């Protein structure tokens, strides 16, 4: 088990270095120049000299391989440089938004699992009855309704019912949990619905499969309480495939909520991403891509390790 874990952790290093290389060169292939966007953005006349000076200041006039070396050294030493647009360190720019985005993602996961496990289980146990049909309608809704639109419905609903809208300023949860949650619970619910729907359907189908396994019949033949048959024997096996879905959905929530953030007026990673791309802010884009790639890699690692925890067949091979 220890060796398995170490192997998996070591394997993330080449993956991340590969991502760093790809990001750097792909950005350079895209036409466009931050200096021109920045200086000519307002339509004013700018001399060629000013542009050159600015390029020099940002290090964009260095040979590309030198820039690449600087970038890779930065990646390894966790120094992602300074945003070319806001002139503040990339880490700082990202950190502010990450706190919010991460919290929304975690809240959404909690909400999703809270509903998905009982929903999926009930649907599987009461297969082809009204419980199952209702669950299928609800989850199809979750999958087909875009999260931002559902978010707008929530806002409208809040406005109509209470004549109230969630606060706009972000308060960290450790400062004021109530203010924090009154703001973030709504976007989390909006994206959590979809998340829950996908997971519940997964749990339903995998539980149905598990319930027809021989070892479930064995458990019943032993006279195990039906509740225990489901919770101990069936659900634990059925949740294994669901872990993958949960992990993938979770990583999507970091940086993938561009429109939802817009609807709820949140200053999250998604918005920052779009801004930095339209501004050709190389350093910021690179930093964020690395961040999200690292998230994907580590969540996947966590899934693999969780699998090993839950499934002894993986642990011992």
């Amino acid at each position, binding site marked *: 088990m220890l060796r398995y874990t170490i192997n998996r952790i070591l394997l993330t290093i080449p993956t991340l270095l590969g991502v760093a290389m790809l990001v750097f060169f792909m950005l350079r292939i895209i036409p466009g120049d931050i200096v021109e966007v920045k200086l000519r953005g307002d339509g004013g006349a700018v001399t060629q000299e000013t542009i050159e000076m600015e390029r020099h200041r940002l290090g964009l006039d260095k040979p590309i391989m030198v820039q690449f070396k600087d970038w890779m050294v930065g990646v390894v030493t966790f120094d992602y440089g300074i945003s070319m647009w806001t002139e503040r360190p990339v880490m700082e720019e990202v950190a502010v938004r990450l706190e919010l985005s991460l919290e929304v993602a975690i809240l959404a996961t909690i909400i999703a699992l809270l509903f998905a496990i009982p929903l999926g289980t009930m649907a599987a146990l009461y297969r082809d009855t009204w419980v199952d049909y209702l669950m299928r309608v609800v989850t199809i809704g979750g999958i087909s309704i875009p999260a931002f639109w559902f978010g707008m419905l929530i806002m409208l609903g809040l406005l109509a019912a209470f004549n109230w809208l969630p606060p706009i300023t972000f308060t960290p949860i450790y400062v004021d949990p109530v203010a924090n949650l009154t703001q973030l619970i709504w976007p989390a619910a909006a994206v959590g619905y979809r998340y829950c729907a996908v997971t519940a359907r997964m749990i339903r189908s995998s539980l149905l499969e598990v319930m027809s396994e*021989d070892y479930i*019949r*064995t458990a019943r033949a*032993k*006279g*195990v309480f039906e509740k225990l048959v489901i919770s*101990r*024997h069936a659900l634990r096996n059925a949740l294994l495939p669901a872990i993958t879905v949960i992990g993938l959905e979770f990583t999507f929530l970091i940086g993938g909520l561009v429109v939802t953030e817009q609807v709820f007026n949140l200053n999250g990673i998604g918005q920052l991403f779009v801004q930095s791309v339209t501004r050709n802010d190389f350093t910021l884009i690179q930093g964020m891509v690395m961040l999200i790639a690292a998230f994907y890699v580590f969540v996947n690692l966590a899934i693999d390790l969780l699998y090993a925890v839950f499934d*002894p067949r993986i642990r*011992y091979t």
Partner: protein
Amino acid sequence: MSIVEVGEDLRARNNTRPGTAGPLLEVDDLHTHFETARGIVRAVEGISFTVNRGEVVAIVGESGSGKSVTALSIMRLLPRLTGKIPKGRILFDGQSLLDLDDEQMRKIRGRDMSMIFQEPMTSLNPILTIGLQIMEPLQIHLGMTDKEAKARAVELLQLVGITDPERRLDQYPHQFSGGMRQRVMIAIGLACNPKLIIADEPTTALDVTIQAQILELMKNLSRKLNIALIIITHNLGVVARYADRVIVMYAARVAEQGAADAVFHRPRHPYTLGLLRSVPRLDRPRGSKLETIEGLPPNLALGSSGCRFAPRCPYRIAICDQEQPLFPTDTGGFSRCHRHTEIASGKIIWAAAGGAGLNFAANTEAPVLSVRNLTKFFSVKGGLRGAGGTVRAVQDVSFDIYPGETLGLVGESGCGKTTVGRLILRLEEPTGGEIHFEGVNLSTASPAELKAMRRKVQVIFQDPYSSLNPRMTVGQIIGEPLHVYKIVNGHKQGEARVAELLENVGLRREMAERYPHQLSGGQRQRVGIARALAMEPSFIVCDEAVSALDVSIQGQIINLLEELQRKYRLAYLFIAHDLAVVRHISARVIVMYFGRIMEVADRDVIYGESLHPYTKVLLDAAPVPDPTIEKKREPRLIKGELPSHLAPPTGCVFNTRCPLASQECREVIPKLEEKRPGHFAACIKI
């Protein structure tokens, strides 16, 4: 405290009801139906029988005869939505099981009555420890604490012959072999010291040597702890060896029941007669042709009146169209046949089908296939830095097959017999050695020669259910190779040839329109044979070609294979684990163990005067369908299990389990030597 005392102690602890006199289990006129999309399937129709305390009762029957459904009905484990018991009564220890609610029934399951299932590989929960799975019923039914339950679990594992029980409690099912898992299942079944254990095909998935170990264990435990045992099986040998009484089921009904001796020696129902005559047997001289029961079992979704066996029965008369009760017979049993008295008086005997000569090839011709020093290693990948190894699947195997001859290849699972077949078919590349087919060395053959060889060498697979493409009609399946190899010109000729082939294998030509799922297992296997014949082969590899089939169907297919062999002078490599079947069909037999040939000889020599200790053990472990012989002989139980392929034994591969093994056997790899004329064995002790 001894195990028996513990058992009695437990019984005293959990026996809340006063023990009632009379039989332990009484099943009376039980009907079980399944509601399917295609209508109601009457899986069990009016079964009645009793089981006394401590008695071993066997329920025998072919697939679909309702034997497993009977067991599940008693346990009340039928699928909830579809399985229904519209009629009948099940009395267990004085309680009417069908009148209990789910909670009352749950209290009986696993405590007074437990069940052991067929598939040890899938019947244990893969993510829970063995310990937890054994302790579960103890804690639920007897309210034991963790400590008590653990102590009892250790005892149980010892009882079923698992060494080092404390350590093994924390292991998971995948760390156990199939035989060991079945032992764990038995331990779970025994946990609360039940009054009745139902074992549904407990050894069908296991090798013959392991089967003997498991059955012996169950029988001894049942005697020692006075537990009644219902064994459900299709293997008549198992029944003969272990059962006190036998219930023969056919098409959802009891055909005959009685004491084991009576049913085997004096059967009073034509189906029992036919069944006993259609199994190839190790204890009798090989007949020229297997006697078979013609036809197929009826479809249970269609209701019918009269005797269910009548359409296949050679003694059918007018009265057979009427419903018949279970008649008490002169042997003290019951038979559902109007003519049981005529059978008893010897007026009716099963007419032996006329046989043809034996297929002994004159070995003067050149062999059709000749294999020399064939070797195949598989490399197994380990982790990143590779704790992998090499599996020596086949080592140094040599043999010849002559035209028109059948060479049998027997061995237990993992002995490399299937790999030999795959190497000959060129589905695997050999690591070493040579294969010559009709004089052509296959490893140096040109693509054109290989193509010709692929046509001449065909295969019949084990599983007729998964080896036919479900989306193709029978006609397309058989016709495809005809068109690929341009054996026929155009569509019309193709159809004509398919029809001819179907008739050759005993199917009607209309079958060409059907899809595989519309056929029975035996019919599918016939389609597989027709497909192989389409290529006009000279050599066919039969890889467990009849093992998935029921006894009565198996006989039909074996006869078909022999008939085709005579007609087309086919050579067969007949790979199987069933010693009796191999004996029946083969002229010569190879016995393999752990990748190596142990013994080669003519059929009668192998079965009559085998030399190698492994062959002897193998033959001893296989029960024959005769209770008198079986009850007399003490089984020479082979100890231990197959060694790991990653840590093979040094010297002779069999030394870890061999009764004759000495220090020398652990050092020298024995050569296959001609010990007597035409009789080769690899053992230094002979």
